[in-house]
């Protein structure tokens, strides 16, 4: 057995073009796979299909050779799951929630729970309703990893986590992988999957657009740059910078999406009085729009 996850023509049609369609995907054992796409692209639907929570309209999915729908109980013995939408546990204490779910699983060591809670700095003595969004997310991560599953499926797991805890989460993922686990993680932030993933599948409007190794996605990586000049904007020089698209000029400011290396842009700015230069990662939708508009 070499495939942890395998889907064949997997589809869930909610009508009006919503859902996931004809998904062909294969994730080998031991890989950290990023499932990337903008909001509403079909990531959560795919994950719920893998977890057997919803039923496919067509096609099917297998986890370690087991049918996700028919053998869902056996599948879930192997899987840890962090949902995108956190459940409500009202007045339960964190310690009671983990004990209850551990009871349902039956294969959880208390030491494992304790270690995870310590790593994520989560106080299990507090009531769920008193938890911040970030703490609820930490609890969901504890529930996903506490039984040391061979496959972890995570739906946008870093939502609400502060940068320090995000780093700890990346560490937990690396450790799980080192222990032989396969990780399937969805996100809508390209830089996030860069931290942990071997390969990335990109889904858009319910269809898998591409599956690539991380290094192959460098061409897709982009930055939104904004430059403020002391004098007039050298529009013609900027237009000739390779990889700089969507150039907009207003007064002394120029902005655009830069794909690839910064070097040609910096060369074009030599000799110009630059007052400010800001670069930020654009949203995935912005990247897609420029990437697919510019691709033949």
């Amino acid at each position, binding site marked *: 057995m070499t495939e942890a996850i395998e889907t064949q023509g997997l589809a869930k049609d909610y009508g009006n073009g919503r859902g996931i369609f004809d998904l062909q995907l294969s994730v080998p054992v031991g890989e950290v796979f990023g499932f990337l796409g903008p909001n509403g692209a079909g990531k959560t639907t795919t994950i*719920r299909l893998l977890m057997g929570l919803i039923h496919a309209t067509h096609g099917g999915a297998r986890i370690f050779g087991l049918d996700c729908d028919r053998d869902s109980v056996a599948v879930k013995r192997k899987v840890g799951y962090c949902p995108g939408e956190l459940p409500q546990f009202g007045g339960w204490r964190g310690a009671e929630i983990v004990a209850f779910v551990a009871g349902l699983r039956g294969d959880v060591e208390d030491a494992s729970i304790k270690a995870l809670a310590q790593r994520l700095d989560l106080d299990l*003595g507090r009531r769920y309703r008193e938890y911040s969004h970030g703490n609820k997310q930490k609890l969901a991560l504890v529930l996903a990893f506490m039984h040391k599953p061979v496959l972890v499926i995570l739906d946008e797991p870093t939502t609400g986590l502060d940068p320090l805890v995000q780093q700890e989460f990346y560490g937990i993922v690396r450790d799980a992988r080192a222990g032989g686990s396969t990780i399937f993680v969805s996100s809508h932030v390209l830089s996030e999957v860069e931290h942990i993933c071997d390969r990335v599948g990109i889904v858009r409007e319910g269809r898998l657009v591409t599956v690539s190794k991380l290094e192959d996605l460098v061409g897709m990586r982009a930055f939104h740059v904004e430059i403020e000049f002391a004098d007039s904007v050298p529009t013609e020089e900027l237009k000739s910078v390779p990889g700089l698209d969507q150039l907009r000029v207003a007064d002394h400011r120029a902005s655009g999406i830069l794909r690839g290396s910064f070097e040609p842009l910096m060369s074009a700015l030599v000799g110009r009085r630059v007052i400010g230069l800001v670069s930020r990662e654009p949203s995935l939708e912005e990247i897609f729009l420029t990437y697919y508009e510019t691709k033949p």
Partner: protein
Amino acid sequence: MTLLRIALKQQRTGLIAMTLLGVVTGALNAVAFVQIAGTSPAERLAFARSMEILGAQLSYMLPVPEHLDTVAGYLQWRAFGFLVLILGIWAVISSTGSGRGDEERGLVEQWLAAGASRARYIAARVIVFALVAAFALAATMVLTAIAANSSGEPLPIAGLASTGLNLLVTTLLCFGLGLVVAQLVTTRRAAGFGAAGLVIALFFINGASRSSDVGPVRWLSPFYLYDRSKPLTSDGALDLGAVSALTVAALVLIALAVTAFVRRDLWGTAISLASRTSRPTTAPSRDPFLRIPVVALLRQQWLWIVTWILGLTALSAFLASIIKTVIDALTSSSTPIMRAYFERAGLGGYDSFVGAIWLSTIMLILSAYAIVQVQSWSADDAEGRLATILSAPVSRARVILERLIALLVAVGLICAAAGIAVYWVATSQSIKLDGSKLALATALLVLIPLAFAAIGQLLAVWRPRIALVLLSTIAVVSYFLVQFTPLFQWPEWVANLSLFSLYGMPMSGEVNWSGIAGLIGVAVAGTIGALFAVQRRDVGA
């Protein structure tokens, strides 16, 4: 306008349910009066005498009966005397939803962020509830008048209008009470139970004041003030002082709640108390019960189950304590129609009245227990807990079956405690009860909540959003079918449509095994339907 529309939308179910309940209570009792009390003055007088004796026993629940030889007196006692409590509970459910429930769900935050002021938000809720309650009561009074008129017993329009007004201000006071309690706690659950408990306690303070001197504390009860008006009967009138006091109290409570809501933090309480700090820990709970299938479900609601056991045991003991007096009063009745009614209902000795009074009351309350459970199952689905459970290696069938087994265990404990209380109190009253018969009747009782729960499971899986309304409708219709079939001499098959009727009257005769088989059939069919439906449905979608 948007806030009013949203508030109206949220009151939709309550409006429909309370209008239907009010109409059924008022109109059907108006029609039933002629059937039960006879038509000649002598029959009416005899009926009134026996009902007054019964009324004295039921004074903990119903007002002191007056003019029971008239439909007006009968309705004032039998229908509107208890409807006021139902309206009060509805008001509490509604006000705690407005005062705390929407906040819990994050809706208040959204509306305030959208520019609505706190005062406007809460005012919209109060205004809409007042309008909805007024509409439900107006419909009740109009249809009661029509029903009474069609039976040849017209009711005074002014009296009906005054009764409606009296009910409305009492309901609004309960709404205000619920709204105030909602400002003092952080969850809707706590607000709902706290306010409902308070309203029921105030109701029983008034009940106690009817038969004994409870002192000035009776003035605290809005139901005492409500009782002071008797506008429907010929020599009664609306007590303007009491109605004014109810109105002022309602306005004061609502103003207090609005002020507290405007001043307090969202998710906070109006009075800040130092919260009990928990010891920080990273270890899971050591409670072993949380890790055992079925027991974990019981453990999660142990306080709730213990409350039910204590409440129903106390109620059962009380009902058993009044059986002898009630039966003596009723069987000495010289009203032929009353006797015929009891014969049709299969009532003879003390033991059969145990079935009529205790079993019929407790089966209704147990069905309410099942309905509350079904609501929590629907909430498990809506709030993502079901998806969390199903992300563990747990089959969907196991979830359905575990829930039913947990319900069966809880109901079994409640029934056992209540049955023992009835036997003990009845024996101490020198009522000779067949212990084995009582044990069998009590054991069979669990089938009623089981049947309701099985249907509820199916509804919760099929249409979780409307499961509660549908199941409550089944319970109410079942109850009224049992109540009215002997009165109106409807054919037996009509009565058998009721789940309560299938249970039969095991204390007054042979066990109706075909009915019991029917109940088991409903439970099995509901469970199989739920098992089938849960496999097909999407969870968390």
